[in-house]
């Protein structure tokens, strides 16, 4: 089945640092999304990005569909960026269902 692998599994930063999170997937996708799960458990949609590059403030994402990976960039990190970041994909061949990676646990220290 579809494999979605995220790296690193854990990341600890000082406030103000930059970071890159990676998502590799094993097959062609119709949809790729990045989510942030905050410490209260809410899943916040960051980007809908099956291909190309998008930016939203300090966050940006790039998906290279032909090479089957996506990157999430966080610049000038803040303590409120802490939480788990999930990559999730919808396979081109499996219909409308989203498969999640295991996530990256990000801790930003003041």
């Amino acid at each position, binding site marked *: 089945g579809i494999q979605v692998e995220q790296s690193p599994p854990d990341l600890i930063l000082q406030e103000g640092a930059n970071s890159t999170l990676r998502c590799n997937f094993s097959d062609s996708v119709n*949809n790729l999304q990045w989510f942030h799960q905050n410490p209260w458990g*809410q*899943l916040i949609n960051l980007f809908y990005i099956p291909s190309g590059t998008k930016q939203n403030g300090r966050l940006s994402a790039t998906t290279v569909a032909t090479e089957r990976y996506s990157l999430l960039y966080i610049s000038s990190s803040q303590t409120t960026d802490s939480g788990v970041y999930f990559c*999730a994909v919808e396979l081109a061949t499996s219909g*409308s*269902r*989203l498969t999640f990676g*295991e*996530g990256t646990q990000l801790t930003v220290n003041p």
Partner: protein
Amino acid sequence: DAGITQSPRHKVTETGTPVTLRCHQTENHRYMYWYRQDPGHGLRLIHYSYGVKDTDKGEVSDGYSVSRSKTEDFLLTLESATSSQTSVYFCAIKAYGYTFGSGTRLTVV
């Protein structure tokens, strides 16, 4: 906010009892989903629906059933709850991308 409401938000139940979780949407989306989230795992798909009375299994469907008699409501039922079903349950809809509800924390004791 995509207008997704999950109820209850928290529930503690005893082993062997039936439990029903409700997901309600206000925007008439065709696709609705139930996921569970456990420590050490990402979210895993339990069941999903692609229309009224149209449902299909996900990767962790054993012990769960679903029903969708109206477009706006998608119910998840644990016929006889077990401790292994202690988890956080998320409902989702598919519109432009997927949007998730706030989750239901279920504890089976």
